[in-house]
């Protein structure tokens, strides 16, 4: 059996989640791995921007909080750390990890970086096919910041087989973070598609961290989660045949049952018969989940088909600017005053001919379910008295967006009675569009940092 745990499921996850996971794997005494998945669709573009400003930046900002509490225990207990926390700058992340190791008196920790996902300057992205889910998005007009392919598990496995104790990647397919250590440990044949599918499934269920163990799950009275301030991140106990039990460390909060596993099994899945990854096409349609103990769910039935011919690559562009501004109305007739504020801002934008896209939500009526045109808001029939917050959003060039936001601030004196609590924020946006890139244009490798070649 091989144990793989999750230490983080997104950039910004709880920084103290990894310790109980490492302690549990270490206590079993058989080594294992812990994975960190910290890249979202736009993270790489933000990392590239940070790297341009500072060549030592561009990796996961929380790296220096994630790793120090666990590095020593991982090294001493043969627990390989695998993370895409390298983001846009895996070499700088590796340097940072080596510095942490040195600071903790751990000389000679072997840190490998996986490279090849960064396609800037290597691929003419306009000559490639756009991913069908983005086919209706308008053509981006800004400059390209980042182009990164989702690469597979092979360079991760090779780095571990070569002795890596920490593997730092940029963009990889999220489940590859787990498939890599599994292939390295069991020596699975890359052509055994059902095993590739099983390892990919384990990775899919682990890569969002607590989302499989009671995070993003609590619905009081319907789906209660014990001790949600102390959720135990998941650990997969994987057998050589690829079947596994999902569990978590004793003494932690959260829960793992068939409901938590089912929700995560289908999270961000489109066709369940064809979850495309660089390593395999995963077929989930025969997967079964069975509770076999408290916080223990056995997962079986993953099937694999040939991997797709192309790799998905996310292209990050400079987008337009986003301005947000909010103001509150409460007490008698607050709804009508809030609605009037929306009308006033619409009229002001028209009068000044500000070239912005805009949206207004009256929070407390209907907001996140609505569309930009306010269809649901127009139908809303609620209480006139209450506590409402009007939230405006504007998109466009920076000057127009700033002017629109300033109009919301001007509601203080010129708007409806009793408006208070204006907050405003203007920031640039990164846009992303996904393309499909031929594999022949992507070449991946691993190398050790801080060692003579």
């Amino acid at each position, binding site marked *: 059996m091989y144990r793989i745990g999750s230490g983080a499921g997104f950039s910004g996850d709880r920084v103290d989640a990894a310790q109980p996971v490492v302690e549990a794997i270490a206590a079993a005494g058989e080594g294992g791995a812990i994975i960190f998945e910290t890249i*979202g*669709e*736009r993270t790489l573009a933000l990392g590239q921007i940070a790297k341009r400003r500072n060549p030592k930046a561009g990796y996961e900002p929380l790296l220096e909080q994630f790793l120090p509490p666990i590095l020593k225990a991982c090294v001493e207990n043969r627990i390989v750390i695998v993370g895409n926390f390298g983001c846009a700058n895996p070499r700088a992340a590796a340097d940072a990890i080596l510095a942490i190791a040195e600071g903790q008196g751990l000389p000679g920790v072997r840190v490998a970086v996986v490279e090849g996902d960064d396609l800037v300057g290597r691929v003419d992205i306009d000559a490639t096919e756009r991913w069908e*889910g983005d086919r*209706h*998005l308008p053509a981006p007009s800004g400059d390209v910041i980042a182009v990164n392919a989702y690469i597979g598990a092979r360079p991760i496995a090779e780095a571990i087989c070569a002795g890596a104790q920490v593997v730092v990647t940029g963009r990889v397919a999220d489940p590859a973070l787990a498939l890599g250590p599994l292939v390295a440990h069991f020596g699975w044949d890359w052509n055994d598609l059902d095993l590739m599918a099983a390892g990919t499934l384990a990775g899919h269920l682990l890569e969002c961290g607590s989302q499989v163990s009671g995070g*993003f799950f609590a619905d009081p*009275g*319907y*789906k*209660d989660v*014990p001790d949600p301030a102390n959720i135990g991140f998941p650990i997969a106990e994987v057998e050589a045949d690829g079947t596994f039990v999902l569990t978590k460390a004793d003494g932690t909060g959260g*829960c793992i*049952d*068939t*409901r938590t596993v*089912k*929700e995560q*099994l*289908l*999270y*961000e*899945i*489109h*066709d*369940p*018969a064809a979850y495309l990854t660089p390593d395999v096409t995963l077929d*989930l*349609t*025969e997967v*079964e*989940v069975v*509770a*076999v*103990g*408290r*916080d223990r769910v056995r997962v079986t*039935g993953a099937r694999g088909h040939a991997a797709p011919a192309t790799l998905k690559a996310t292209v990050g562009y400079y*987008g337009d600017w*986003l301005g947000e501004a909010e103001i509150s109305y409460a007490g008698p007739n607050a709804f009508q005053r809030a609605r009037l504020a929306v009308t006033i801002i619409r009229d002001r934008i028209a009068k000044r001919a500000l070239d912005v*896209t*805009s949206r207004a*939500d009256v*929070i407390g009526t209907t*907001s*996140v*379910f*609505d*569309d*930009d*045109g306010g*269809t*649901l808001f127009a139908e809303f029939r609620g209480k006139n008295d209450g506590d409402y917050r009007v*939230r405006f*959003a*504007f998109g466009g060039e920076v000057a127009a967006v700033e002017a629109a936001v300033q109009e919301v601030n001007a509601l203080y004196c010129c708007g409806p009675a009793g408006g208070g609590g204006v907050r405003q924020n203007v920031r640039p*946006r*990164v*846009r992303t569009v*996904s393309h499909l890139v031929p594999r022949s244009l992507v070449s991946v490798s691993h190398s050790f940092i801080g060692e003579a070649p």
Partner: protein
Amino acid sequence: MTRNRITVPLHAIAHGRAGDKGNRLNVNVIAYRPEFWPILLEQVTEASIAALFAHRGVTRVVRYELPKLQALNFVIDDALEGGVNSSLSLDTHGKTLSFLVLDLPVELPPHIMPSDTAIRSDTPNLDPVMGGVDNE
């Protein structure tokens, strides 16, 4: 014996989660109990989901059935006002939209009482019906 039609929110018989990729939303809908699975199959359709999202201008809804999980997976195209990097919505990911789906009214068949659907689970992990096991 017949009774009047009884309608409950989907939330009373199913749970689920939303995810995003670009401008494409997926929402899974999972039956709490085996007897609710036929209700999902019959009433939570591509057309009913498309109607829930009509104001968002969706262009396509595809439903996938997973009988081994007693779950449906909906893939909803162009539901996210451009997606996480373009949308002006507060919830650019569309993470809240699973609960728009779970607000869909469903009609209970005569053999299921409304009291059967009021899922209360203080110790979900110990309730076999809820998917856990009692091993204490």
